[in-house]
């Protein structure tokens, strides 16, 4: 198993005729994602990489049957309308790739998703990948590189950083241990699926044995995971790295969510809280792999 995406999920791409959308649709197809079509208003009837293009999401669903996931490749100002269109057409999971989506637009997307019982990853996510199965978004770059870099296995990765999602995956696979799913939740202050929700999915996933969390300063996602561990809702071992140890309060470090506000979301606060509930914290990013290897090894010998 894996979470969120696998080779059987039916996927469409919104904005498939655009510069980024068409290139990425090709890479996803090459990797094995079951893309069945896409849409761009005014481009209905065209074809991209042999896939049918429709004017609206509703039409795509009517023609192609139930769709599991939509990956949205439209510029930030148009993300809100596109996401809501997907939810209203009954798509249960959406990935929002664009960076710089206004906060109030994200809040509106959240409210509509909640009302209709849908979920979304992002915004500002490089995507989700279940190695050797399928990818959503643009994780891994070229399909052949992605195949070389990532392999199937028992480690679930969730990260607030896109670049570190890929590098964590790469280094873990180099140690010979594979990955169930890599999920980049996105770097913004408000996002759809958060660490505690992803951790819950990994907990319920039979293939995942260890959870790796690449967190950073700002917000409360890491603390919420600690709460779940304490409550016994997460029982699988959690290895965490928290970035931004040397960041100053009040200054934003690239990601909109990576800011210490009102003394909350500090590096020390997160680390202390996670340690308290028994998560393993690695101080240096480069140590994650060794630690994961040790934990996986120990777990194997116990089982």
């Amino acid at each position, binding site marked *: 198993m894996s979470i969120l995406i696998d080779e059987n999920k039916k996927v469409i791409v919104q904005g498939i005729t655009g510069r980024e959308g068409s290139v990425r649709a090709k890479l996803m197809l090459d990797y094995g994602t079951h893309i069945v079509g896409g849409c761009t208003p005014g481009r209905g009837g065209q074809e991209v990489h042999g896939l049918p293009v429709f004017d609206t999401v509703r039409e795509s669903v009517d023609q192609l049957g139930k769709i599991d996931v939509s990956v949205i490749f439209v*510029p*930030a*100002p148009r993300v809100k309308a596109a996401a809501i269109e997907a939810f209203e057409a009954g798509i249960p999971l959406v990935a929002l790739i664009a*960076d*710089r*989506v*206004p*906060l*109030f637009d*994200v*809040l*509106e997307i*959240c*409210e509509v998703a909640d009302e209709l019982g849908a979920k979304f990853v992002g915004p500002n996510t*490089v995507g989700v990948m279940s190695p050797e199965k399928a990818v959503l978004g643009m*994780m891994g*770059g*070229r399909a052949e*590189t992605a195949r070389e*870099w990532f392999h199937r296995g028992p480690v679930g990765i969730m*990260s*607030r*950083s*896109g*670049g*570190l*999602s*890929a*590098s964590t995956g*790469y*280094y873990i696979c180099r140690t010979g241990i594979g990955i169930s799913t890599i999920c980049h939740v996105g*770097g913004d*202050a*408000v996002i759809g699926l958060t660490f505690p929700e992803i951790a819950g999915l990994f907990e319920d996933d039979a293939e995942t044995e260890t959870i790796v969390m*690449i967190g*950073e*300063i700002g*917000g*409360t996602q890491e603390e919420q995971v600690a709460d779940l561990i304490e409550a016994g809702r997460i029982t699988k071992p959690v290895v965490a*790295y928290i*970035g*931004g*140890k*040397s*960041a*100053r*309060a*009040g*200054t*934003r*470090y*690239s*990601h*909109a*969510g*990576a*800011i210490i506000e009102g003394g909350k979301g500090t590096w020390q606060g997160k680390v202390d809280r996670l340690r308290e509930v028994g998560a393993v914290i690695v101080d*240096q*990013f*480069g140590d994650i792999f060794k630690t994961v290897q040790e934990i996986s090894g120990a777990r194997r010998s116990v089982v």
Partner: protein
Amino acid sequence: MAQLHEYRAKRILAGNGIEIPAGEAAFDAVKAGEIARRLGGEIVVKAQIHSTSRAAAGGVRFAETPVEAEKIASEMLGQEFAGNLCEAVLIDEKVEIVREFYVGFTVDTALKRPALLFSDAGGSGIEDRAGSLKKLVCSIRREPTTAELESLCGDGRIAAILKQLYRVAKKTDARTIEINPLALLKDGRLIALDCRLSVDDYAEYRQKELGIEIARELGHTPTRLEKIAWEIEKDDFRGTFFFVEIPDDKTGVRDPQPAIRIGFHGAGGGGSMASLDAAQRNNLAPACYVDTSGNPPASKVYRAARIILSIPGIRGYFLSGSGVASQEQFGLARAVLKAFLEIRPNIPAVLRLGGNGEDIAREMVERYAEYLPAPIEAYRKTDTADFCAARLRELIENGYCRAQSGVKTAEKAFESDYTFRTRTGTVSFNHKALNDFSAAKIVDACPAGILKLDANRKPVLAVEAAEAERGKCTECLACEFACLELGLKAVKIDFPIDGLA
């Protein structure tokens, strides 16, 4: 989030039916005196800076006469308060306060909903009375009802102000608004005495009328270089260029040796932060935090490198991102090399170029290293950020420089006989210096395929000049480097940087 100055935030409140004290902002002392004279009576002079400790730092002072107000203003203007330069003062009427409340708007990022805040114990030090703060979580799509607001604050007039506050927030894409204090005066008025309003960076494009100078949380008054950097970033949505200067922090040094100031250039937010931590573990003190990510054009990365190299006193250059980038690393290498080859800085550089195309990138850096006065080394995804930071420290501490001087040799003027414009610069060719072989190399190098050979077998645009300028030329530097590879200076690409000497 870009923070608006108090006087501008209060003007927005006033425009939306929330009363504020009589007053006006002044940018020079004489004007401050004039405003005080017009207002009459006692005056409060408030330094317009972004700091929570303004009053404690002497940024709020009272004046009994216009002359005194003018004197205070002249002292405040140009002065720094808690690291913030005061460029404007607000001259307000002095009021008699009976009671102070706190009202605010924020986004609860955990609940993913907007929220209104109220406390009947407003005024300075509200942070310490956080327990008195009551919160109404609302919807971004439906205004809170009067009944909901009244149950939050227990008062009809304040409820009306809260409703207006919600509307102001929606209108301005506010990240947070704080009116503290909302003051009940002796004469019965209920007014916003102070206000902090910060706007969502990502909504800057639809909030042009707010005139946001830099849509960034810098934590200080923007520096000259930060302003130059923002001009480059502002309207160019191709990838991101994030630049913040880090002041020399003499207090934070734990190591007995003083930390070494370096230019820090990250690529990708998380990897950049991890690399920043690695630098600090190796006693390197970044003078800036730079992140070029999201597949930016080489023009943007080149400008970032130029700006970093212009920070005075840096002793090394550290480029490090996630280490396993999906983007082709030779694009990054070209951009940084162009800046180094032009400036020829006498400081060592370590470039961690891990990811797609890393071998080509490293080879390039090695090839050009010998033309530079100080060592420049490239590393790959198998090299950790800590290893690279330690290597840079070693290079700096060894003081290793090549025998050749770092003095820029006078370059022969470039003779151009063919030029076209790109989105943010110009590309020039010297056709006379090109033979059939080199001309073909240049045309082949263009990944966008916008070049062709003309009847004389010289490289020219294959598309309309206007198309190249609109973005068909992706500013990737491939043609310039293809030419350099042949040892020729027949292509010159100019990406000007406004305001940089």
